[in-house]
Each structure stands twice: as C-alpha cells, then as structure tokens.
C-alpha cells in the first residue's frame, strides 16, 4: 500500500465516493446505474436537497450576522378580575374599653412634652383632649357592657418615660431623646434614643399604645364605624357597589379599613375595559376627629392594591392619598413566575414551609416573616407582639404582666433584621 493512492479515472473516483461517502442517496446513483430514469430521478433529488441546503445555509448565516438577542416577556391582555383594594382612613378609633388609658397616656405625653420642651409645647394636646371628652359626654357610642371588663389590673407605667441625654460631640452639644428598657432582672439596660425628639416621641407613644391596646379582648365589635362614614360614594364600572363587596377590619395604626373584592370570585368585579370610567371610583372622607395626635402625623387615606385572598400589609406596600384632591391611579399587573425546584427556592402554596402561617389567607413572604417572628416572640418573651396575630394559647404583651417585654422585643427584632433569626431562611418567596 502506497503512501497515498490516487484514482486513475473520474468514473472510478465517483463510484468510490458514491459507495463510501456518508451522504445518503449517492449510493443510489451507482446502484441505479442500469436504469437511467432512476439515476436521473436520484440526481434530481440530490440536487434538490443540495439546493435546499444552500438556501437554508444562506438564511442561517444572514440570521447569525444580524446578531439578534432574545428577551422573553409576554403581554397578556385577557380580561382579568379587578384586584382587591384596601382603603384605611388613618384614624384609629379610641375603643371605649381603653379610652381611659389612652387619655392617661396623652396626659403622660403632655407631661413629657412639657418636661422636654417647655410648657408651651403641649397646649394644643390638652385642648384636643377636652374636645374629645366633650364629645364622649355628648353620648356617642358607649358600650356599657364592656365597662366592667375594663382591665383593673392594668395601669400605665412611668418606668418608661422619655429622658433627654446630652452628649458632647465635636465641641457642640448634642442631645438625644429616648426611653430606657431593661431585662427582667433590671440589668442589661439600653436606651432607644433618637437625635430627633419627634421620632423618639412617636416611638415612645407607640410602645405605650401597644401595651394599652393589648388589653382589648380579641373579639372586637365589628362595624363600629359605618361604611358610610368613610366612603361617601362607591362605583365600580359605572354601577354602585353593593354592601357585600367590602370586608371591614380595624387596624390599630391605620384605623378603619375596608377591602373591596377581597375574594375575587364575584363576576361583578370582572375588569371589562381599561380606562377611568370602568374602574373603581370612590369619594372618601378623611376624618381626623378621633385622631391620636401622637400615633401618626399624616392625614389622608391609606390605599393598597393587592391580590385576592392576600392579607394587606399596609405598612409595606400601601400608599397615601391626600385629602382635598382627586387622585387617579392606573394599574398594570405584572406576574412573575419563579421556576422553583433546582432553580431557586420558592413555594407554590406555602404548604411545604416550616413556618405555620398565622394569617388565614394565601401565602406571602411578609405573612410568613410575621408569623415566624411572632412565634419566636412567644418562645423568647412569653407573649405576642401586638401588631401581628396571635398563635393559639398566647397573649399579647403588656408591661403590667411582662415588664421586660420591650427589652426582649427590641433585641429579638434587631436579630431578625441582622438575619440572625432564621426567619429569612425559613420563608421562601412565593412562586407566583
């Protein structure tokens, strides 16, 4: 065998090629040598497929040199259900049961203000309180049956009063205002202090307010405030809303809240057309009568647009609507689907999450985090944080029963924020 052997004729070469090549079909050219019709047919077929190949190659090359990119996004314009809408009047009601304590607390706030900022600061507060008292005397809603329930065991504690601390920094006198929290043995004390007196006062008030509100029995009277007091007019898609369309709940900070279309099953709430006349239009009354002057400083209406069967966490995603102006809110739904599985942790319905939800609504990350924190709170401090729902068998914290709960809470909370409490590990994001 030589180093390289050549064919002696074209015919031989061609025949060898056709027999041994890996191209299908060429063998047919040789085999069908005796029938010209067949040879011609196969030649045509081969040439045709070669032509196709050439054409497709050209397409592919032109595509490649155009350097296209892929961006996946789908726009869906199918009719949808209108989302759930929650509105709150930012005016938490003074529950009859604790109004005594709230007045006491306001008096304490006045004292603190006088102590810290001089006598003029608190003048307005007392006026307001008088007005409130007058209104009460006029015989507004008074639930006498509850008067005997009025917790005799609770009294406002003066252990947590605001003080001013001076520290000399950079040659200038700086002061911080805050209150002291200690653990149950009276040690390991720290101050929750702020350079601004406003922040300190608000935080101090909130702390006491929680303790007072914790006295309330879990079953609050529903519809203490009438729907008509907040909503003057309500229309959806040009038709008046029905009483069955809204669900009421009371939030200790945001006041009376109504959720429209919370279930999302009623065909009345199908979103038929885009545009202002086809949506929900409300005329609201932002009342500031019962307003607790130190609880929140804003006035208006808190609004949140959310999914059906979802607990609205107004402090997270709610936004404000200012009184005295017409506000138009356009909405657009973005749906994010996470793949889950090996691609990243997420949960479809929360059933596989180690944390048992305290909210009886669908799974959200916030609901899981709150539930996880509340359980840790009950475990470490022996009582529940007032703003979150209670697990079975637990009570809300108040300092007449657990004098050190504030200390416990602030420490636990900073652990949550620094990711040392494994709530963030236990709570995956929802898959959709």
């Amino acid at each position: 065998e030589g180093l390289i052997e050549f064919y002696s004729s074209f015919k031989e070469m061609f025949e060898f090629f056709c027999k041994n090549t890996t191209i299908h079909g060429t063998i047919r050219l040789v085999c069908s040598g005796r029938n010209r019709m067949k040879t011609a047919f196969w030649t045509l077929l081969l040439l045709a497929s070669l032509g196709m190949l050439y054409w497709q190659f050209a397409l592919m090359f032109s595509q490649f040199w155009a350097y296209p990119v892929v961006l996946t996004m789908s726009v869906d314009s199918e009719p949808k259900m209108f989302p759930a809408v929650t509105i709150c009047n930012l005016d938490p009601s003074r529950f009859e049961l604790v109004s005594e304590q709230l007045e006491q607390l306001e008096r304490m706030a006045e004292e603190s203000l006088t102590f810290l900022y001089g006598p003029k600061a608190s003048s307005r507060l007392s006026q307001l309180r008088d007005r409130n008292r007058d209104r009460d005397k006029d015989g507004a809603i008074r639930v006498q049956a509850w008067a005997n329930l009025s917790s005799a065991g609770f009294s406002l504690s003066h252990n947590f009063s605001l003080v001013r601390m001076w520290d000399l920094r950079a040659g200038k006198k700086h002061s911080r205002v805050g209150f002291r929290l200690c653990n149950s043995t009276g040690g390991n004390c720290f101050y929750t202090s702020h350079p601004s007196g406003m922040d300190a006062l608000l935080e101090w008030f909130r702390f006491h307010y929680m303790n007072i509100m914790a006295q309330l029995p879990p079953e609050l009277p529903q519809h203490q405030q009438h729907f008509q007091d907040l909503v003057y007019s309500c229309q959806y898609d040009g038709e008046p809303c029905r009483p069955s369309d809204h669900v009421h709940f009371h939030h200790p900070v945001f006041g009376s809240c109504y959720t429209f279309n919370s279930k999302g099953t009623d065909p009345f709430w199908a979103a038929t057309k885009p545009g202002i006349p086809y949506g929900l239009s409300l005329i609201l009354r932002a009342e500031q009568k019962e307003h607790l002057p130190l609880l929140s400083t804003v006035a208006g209406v808190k609004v949140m647009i959310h999914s059906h069967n979802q607990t609205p966490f107004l402090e997270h995603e709610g936004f404000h609507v200012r009184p005295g102006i017409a506000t138009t809110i356009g909405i657009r739904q973005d749906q994010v689907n996470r793949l889950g599985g090996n691609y990243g942790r997420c949960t479809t319905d929360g059933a596989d999450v180690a944390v048992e939800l305290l909210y009886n609504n669908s799974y959200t990350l916030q609901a899981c985090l709150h539930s996880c924190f509340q359980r840790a709170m009950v475990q470490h401090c022996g009582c529940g944080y007032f703003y979150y729902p209670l697990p079975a068998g637990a009570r809300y914290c108040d300092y007449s029963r657990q004098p050190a709960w504030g200390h416990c809470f602030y420490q636990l909370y900073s652990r949550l924020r620094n990711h040392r409490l494994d709530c963030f590990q236990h709570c995956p994001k929802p898959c959709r």
Partner: protein
Amino acid sequence: AATAPGKRITARLKRTLPVRGPQAPTLSELMRWYCLNTNTHGCRRIVVSRGRLRRLLWIALTLSAVGLILWQCAELLMNYYSASVSVTVQFQKLPFPAVTICNINPYKYSAMKEYLYELDKETKKALETFYGFSEGKSKVRRSVDDWNSTGSDFFEQIPLLKVEDFSRTATELHSGQKRKIEGSVFHKDSSIVNSGDSNDIIGFQLCDANNSSDCALYTFSSGVNAIQEWYKLHYMNIMAQIPLEIKEKLSYSAEDLLLTCFFDGLSCDKRHFTRFHHPLHGNCYTFNSGESGTILSTSTGGSEYGLQVVLYIDEADYNPFLVTSTGAKIMVHDQNEYPFIEDIGTEIETAAATSIGMHFTQSRKLSKPYSDCTETGADIPVDNLYNKSYSLQICLHSCFQKAMVESCGCAQYAQPLPAGAEYCNYKKNPNWMYCYYRLHEKFVKEQLGCQQICKDACSFKEWALTTSIAQWPSVVSEDWMLRVLSWDKGQKLNKKLNKTDLANLMVFYKDLNERFISENPANTLVILLSNFGGQLGLWMSCSVVCVIEIVEVFFIDSLSIVLRRQWQRAKKWWSGRQQGRAAQASDVERQGHENPACIDEDLPTFTTALRLPLPQDSPLPRTPPPNYSTLRLETAFTEQLPDTLELGQH
C-alpha cells in the same frame, strides 16, 4: 433431511457469511467490522481510504472531530448550568441605593445679597419699566430709587429689549433707545408667530464681541421666561467668579437641611450623608453614597424600613427670581452614578409627606456586535469629566463641555471643569454668552457630533419610583410636632417653624424583588454549528466529515486525476515523438474494476448469501439495497424464504 428447513438455512448462512461482529477473531478485524458498519461517519473513511497518508489524515480528522464534539458538549452543559445559576440568585437583602437630596433653592438668599445686590436691583427695575408694577415691599422701592445713581454693568453688557416684530426694531429697556435689529431672531417659543397683535415681545440680544454686526436676538413669548433666562445668564456669570469653598458656605449645611433621619428602623444623622456640590442646586446631600466603604442594605420592604427624613426648606430665604417653586429635589441613583438632579430629579413639596416606593430593575445589554453600547466608556473618545462611572448623560455633558472649551475658550458653569480650563465670566471672556448660545443650538441640532460619539451604557440600574403624597402634619399633630422640631432645630431659632418650611420624605423598597433584564445572544457559535448539523443531516444525512470527503474527492482527487492525465498525455506525446513507435496499446489506464485495491465492500445480500442466481432477464434491474446494516433484513428468514425463491425462479 430430518432437520427443519429453517435450521438448514441458518446453518448454510453461517457457513457462507463471514464471521462478523463480536465473534471476530482479532481486535483489528473487529475494529474494521465496526468501522465499516457503524453509523459514525469518518470511521468508515479510515478503513476504505486508499493510501497510508490518506488514512492517517482521516484518523487525525476523526479524532479532532471527537475533540470538537467534547468541547461543544461541554460548552452546552456549561451554558445550561450557568443559565440556571443566574436565575437562582435571590436577594434576601437588597443594597439600598444612594438618595441625593437638594433644596430647590441653591444658596441662601440672605447670604447671597452682597453678590446679587446689583443684579436684583436691575431685575426689579426691569420689571417696573416693562410691566409698570413695583413690589409692595419697601426695600424694592428703595433699590429702584437709588438705581439711577449707580452705574449698571448688566444692562450695558446684555440689555433686555422690547421687540416690535414687524418693524424689526427694538426698544432698549433702560435707556429707551431704539435700535435696529440685525442678524437672526431666535424665538424660544414658536407659538409667538401667530400672536400678531402682541408686540410686547421681550428678549435679549447677544453679539459677537469681535464683530458687532453678528448678532442673535433671543425672544420669549412670556416675560416671565425672558426675565428668568436673562437673570440666569447673569447669575451664572456672578457665580463663576466665586470660589467653590465660599459657595459651599453660602449654601445649606446638613444641619440646615435635615431635621430628622431614620433608616431601617434606626435613627441616623448627618454623618450618613455626603455633601456634594452641584453648580445649579448648591449643596446637595447624598444618603448612603458608599464613600465610607459600606453600602447600607435593607432586609425588609416597606416604608418603615426605608429612609425617612424631615427636611427643613427655608422658604423665606429663597431667591425670588432664580427659583419659583418651593420644595426639595431628590434623586435615587446608584452609588457609582453621577446624580443629574437637574435633569431627572423628582420634586417633593412642602407641608406634605411624600412616600416614594421603589422597584429595582437591573438591565444588561450585550455589547458589540449585538448592540452599539459601551461597557466602561473607555472606548469613547470623550474624557469623562465626572468622577463617576460612565453613562450617556455624562458623555453628552462632557462632550459639550469639551466643545465649549475648544470654541469659546472657557467652560460652562453647570458642568465640571476640564483640566486647565476655567469657568466663563464676561470679565475675562466677554464673548462667551454668544458663543455658548450658538454652540448650544448646534448641540441641540446634533451638529456637534456628540450624539454620534456617545453611546449607551451596556448595564444600568434603574429604580422605578411610585410616589404618593399625604397631608402632613395632620391637623391634630401639627402643634406638638412643630414645637418639638423647632426645639430640635435649636433654641436660638426663636420663631416656631411653619409647616410650609418642612417636607417629610420616605424612600423605601416596595418589595425586595430584584428584576434582572439581560440580553442573551440568540445565536451563539454552538447554536450556529448545531443548526448547520441539523440542516446537513436533514437534507443530506451528512456531517462535517462528509464535507471534508467532498473536498477530498472532488477537489484534491479530481485535480490529481486531471494532472495525471495531462502528464501521461504529455509523456505519451513525448515518447511518441522520441521513438516514433506506432502501436502502443499496453499503457491503457487501469480502470477501477481491474484495480485490486477496489474491493467490493458490499455486504452480502440474501441473494448472494444464499448463492441464488441473479435474475438475469428481469425486465426491471433490481438495485441492491445499500450496504447499511440498518437495511439488512436479519429476521424471519423462514417466512421470507418462499418469496425469495419465487423471485429467484423468474
């Protein structure tokens, strides 16, 4: 005779068929069998090639093809896994962006008095002459009164004019002289053309200092715009002469601006803010600028966990001509990004709580050749004058500034200074305003080439903002809060703060979902090759190996045949001429059929295996089935046998 016909035929088959497959006696025979029968292209080529060199080449080719396959598969696998990794990235903690806050008024008006005294006086005078009103305040009247005594620089430099459009004459405001307008007229407002009856058009004229006939008149439909523009022009001249340190002192300090600060549930103070001097907005303060080395992040979304500040907007100390709105300007941006607060800042109002919810989106474009964007800006022939990472905005501003320094000899006040240049003022560069307006017009008309040079940045971060406003402070909390804040502001401030001096701002993440939009090439090299493979396989059942085969046979081999024929013909001709021998038939080319190297590689078919006679006189010549093992019929010989025999007897 006792054995069944089926068994007899298998025995006969075994005898006649050569031993193949796993029963092959030697390893080389097994390899040969495999290579001949496998569907893997290339392998067969090794066996059937003629010549050692050819065979070696084919072995090398096949092996390198195997290597390429491994490489491509690895690439595909890596692609698969890397793609899934980029999806798994989930942020439980999201870095908080930098938030830059400016008072809309750049400098304290009371502190600026000594610099702006002359200018303000003349502006007031202009207002009075034009519109016949004087501000009710006594100080205005006083300043108007003593205006005549002091000489005026400003009106001599660039006077305000009342223009009569028809006659093309202008009345000079301060002297009352009429002058003829030459040169071109620029209307800042195009709607002015229709208002034929209004002849009270106000504007100013900018002339080339070297050639006074080359003038451009700028007119405005509204006197407000004209006076503001004119004021701004002079204001920039004045500010350009004040050194930076003094300007920083003239503007607001962090203590002035920030009353309270709260971030992620903890209080913060001015140490968390970095000062940044903006030429048009004075001192701005950037929260979380990352200059201390750490970037703050939030662990939970919601307004309680974001930045909450109460700003002190000293409304009484506003410049009445420069700014006409009250409030603050804020901008959310990346730490490496320069805040173009004058272009894309959000304004917040006083006596209101503004909550700004953010959605974070990160986008990445593919650079060349997929799109025309730049990764770092290093390939753009414009120096980055800003000390921040590249963006289109930075490039455009830098490009304009460069052109300004080149053609006007000085730098525009609103943008940073290039090396070796200084800001324009008409003491040194009397011509600059005209030059600037001309250049700016060119810039807007894209004649400077900046828009062509500057490219988009490939990756950018974006915070989509949702703003909502509530009344703040509420009626009941107003009283105590203003008291407390006034006290905090310092006891020396005896007056109680007014609620229109305050603005409450909350900036927070609405949720901690990061949206990452990235481009992926639709056609990578792997995909291109795979497409080729698919097409070749679909139409020709061919691969790269068969492309090489075609090259081998139709180019190299056919060339060699042509050359050899030519050579032999030449040799024949030469020898025939040399010896003149006539009859010479022995040198017939050896045809392929006589060639001993050409072995019929066809696998035995049934007919040949059974030594059946071929149907010689068949009207239709039967084509033998192709020698692919897939086409071989190996089963159910017993059923097939009668058919075969029947055919054979034809």
